[in-house]
């Protein structure tokens, strides 16, 4: 089957979705996915971030589709022509989606554990606008405990339903779900029941934002201060294939291995995730490959930081000062230092 996405034609198998086809081309073309998660069946279609324009339905019926369609769920037809990054309507809609998702999402990235590996951060950086049009107060919820290992910050949740599908498909019984409706909908267990399941920790991995966080890791570090290393162990419950996150010599976090789309390759059990935090318990395979564009690469393995090509005095001149004394004094110090050199 032939499909053309952003003027690039490729051959795909029957049953492929537009998203999968676009991912075959590469990350520049692939639409963003906030709720779609390939390993989870029936996920997708909810965030509307991947809406694309189909300008020709198929070879047989080359009429354009009247509305934008979700790339994650729409199957490719032979001769379909899709516009993603080259269509202004799509980009405009996507800017709107970012705005909607951030409408009630707190901008607490500086204290959020997900910062640096947050899909919403990436999504808003790539597709959003820098100003805000809202004057309304955000909806807020109280943080709740979901059992001994998982903390829920409902404020940050974007209701992608990934954790619900994970609990349905990976664990042997779902005890949490979505309560209420509209912008007051929240992830919750039935009357504060604890989530106690061998594979419940995977909910943390699939969460695109910082709504579900690992209690053994919370506030211990920033993700760009830690070093990911591939490791395995012989575990009777799961494959034992994990990523260890080191800070110095200490394993501060264990997660599943993720592919380039941020999707877990193999789900791991809670014992591996929460209890095995000594290097002696693991066989180290080597450093994890991280995209050099990722903030995680910024500080890893003691590599030299990239020096700016322009002098700091020029930056100070071009810098639009905001009325904050700390900023000004910091820059003055920097200029003095430069002069001394």
């Amino acid at each position, binding site marked *: 089957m032939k499909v053309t996405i952003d003027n690039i034609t490729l051959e795909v198998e029957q049953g492929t979705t537009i998203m999968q086809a676009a991912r075959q081309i590469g990350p520049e073309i692939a639409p963003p996915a906030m709720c779609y998660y390939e390993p989870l069946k029936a996920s997708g*279609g*909810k*965030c*509307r*971030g991947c*809406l694309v324009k189909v300008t020709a339905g198929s070879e047989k019926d080359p009429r354009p589709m009247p*509305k*934008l369609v*979700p790339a994650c*769920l729409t199957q490719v037809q032979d001769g379909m022509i899709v516009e993603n990054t080259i269509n202004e309507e799509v980009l405009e*809609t996507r800017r*709107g*989606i970012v*705005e*909607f*998702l951030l*409408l*009630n999402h707190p901008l607490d990235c500086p204290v959020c554990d997900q910062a640096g590996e947050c899909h919403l951060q990436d999504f808003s950086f790539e597709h959003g606008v820098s100003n805000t*049009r*809202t*004057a*309304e107060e955000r*909806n807020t919820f109280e943080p709740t405990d979901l059992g001994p290992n998982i903390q829920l910050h409902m404020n940050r949740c*974007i*209701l992608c*339903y990934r954790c619900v599908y994970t609990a349905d498909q990976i664990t042997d019984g779902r005890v949490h*779900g*979505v309560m*209420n*409706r*509209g*912008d*007051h*909908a929240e992830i919750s267990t039935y009357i504060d029941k604890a989530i106690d399941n061998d594979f419940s920790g995977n909910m943390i991995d699939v969460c695109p934002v910082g709504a579900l966080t690992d209690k053994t890791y919370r506030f211990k570090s920033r993700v760009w201060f830690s070093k990911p290393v591939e490791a395995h162990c012989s575990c009777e419950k799961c494959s034992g294939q994990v990523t260890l996150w080191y800070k110095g010599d200490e394993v501060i976090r264990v997660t599943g291995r993720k592919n380039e789309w941020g999707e877990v390759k193999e789900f791991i059990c809670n014992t591996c995730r929460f209890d095995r935090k000594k290097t002696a318990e693991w066989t180290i395979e080597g450093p994890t490959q991280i995209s050099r564009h990722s903030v995680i690469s910024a500080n890893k393995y003691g590599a030299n930081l990239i020096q700016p090509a322009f002098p700091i005095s020029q930056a100070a001149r071009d810098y639009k000062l905001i009325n904050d004394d700390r900023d000004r004094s910091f820059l003055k110090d920097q200029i003095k230092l430069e002069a001394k050199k």
Partner: protein
Amino acid sequence: MKILTEQIDVPGIETIDVFCKHGGYQAVEKAIKKMTPDEVTEEVKKSGLRGRGGAGFPVGMKWSFLAKPEGIPRYLVCNADESEPGTFKDHYLMWKSPHTLIEGMIVSSFALGANTSYIYVRGELMYVIHILEKAIQEAYDKGYLGKNILGSGYDLDLYVQPGGGAYICGEETALLESLEGKRGNPRIKPPFPAVKGVWQCPTVVNNVESIAATSWIINHGGDAYAAIGVGRSTGTKLISASGHIRKPGVYEIPLGITVEDFIYSDEWCGGIREGHKLKAVVAGGSSVPILSAEMILNTVDGEKRLMTYESLSDGGFATGTMLGSGGFIVMDETTCIVHNTLTFARFYHHESCGQCSPCREGTGWMDKVIYRIEHGKGRKEDIDLLVDVAKKIEGNTICPLGDAAAWPVAAAIRHFRDEFEWHIEHPELAIQPGAVYMRPGASWAQ
């Protein structure tokens, strides 16, 4: 010309004996004994009956789209989850004459080859559910339901399901989810219910009024039904008239009478209440665009607007609206359009299921912004912001609730922008109780 409500005031029509005395269940006898399912479908197709729930999709065509794989059961689901503000016709019909619906259900199920059918009734209407259950029991006792109906070998079981108490459960796929006992979230289409509906089997979902009309069509023929009405809008339609009119209520009108007649004639609404003038009309339930008096009475070409699907939507959304589900809300000059829009926006904010982000966040945003404008805290840029938010919700959601939330807000600003501006520019006047902006030179302004 009345079809559904002809005998609605006969005492005791809710019992099967009185109903049968007045010609009830003849359609069942005719369809099951003398016709094949395809003939029934053909007759409905001929009638040109269009879905009465709002979208106006031809019923016969919908039936013929139903997938018919071997060995897999098919279902008919009646959508009686009527919750649109301004619409109360199905409630009235089921409450007064439950057998009209049940007769239609049997005929329609026979046409579709369904052996199990459901009536999904809005959960708040518990007493209607009791009435329906009693009527169904009577039909079972008379042999119109159950095994081997009238000795034909056709079996049908009919169940009443109370709704989940949410507006969204009236959306057909959310209704099916709710019917299956799950959270009423709309499904992502495709697959359409005609292929994978309730319990993953082919399903047809029809409105109460559409199904009820089928028995008359079988009795009198599709051509007789198509003879009523204008063009592609055939038959009669129940209109729930409410607001500032002398005689609010449910009226069965032959499609094709003029809007002016409907509002001012004594046969229907009886005119605007004493000493007041028509300002605006929401013609088809809260989700359709509001129109000002001039626009609802005449089309942009100067022709009289008719109560038909085509005429009401004449001119697109720029100058037209939709017949929708027939919730006809009339407003006189004492109505503040901003306040009215706030009421609608709040409703959709409250009823959004929260599954997809444009609707979940957008409805809340619009509600909050209009609330600020109404309470004298509006900003100049808010009006354009509302238009933009509505535009970004429309068409980008999983189900039509997003559109339904965006349209009334966009239309109110399109046609009554001066009223919003007045609220923002004169907050001290706008927050006075009962304060309404009078557009200079408008027919309703004093």
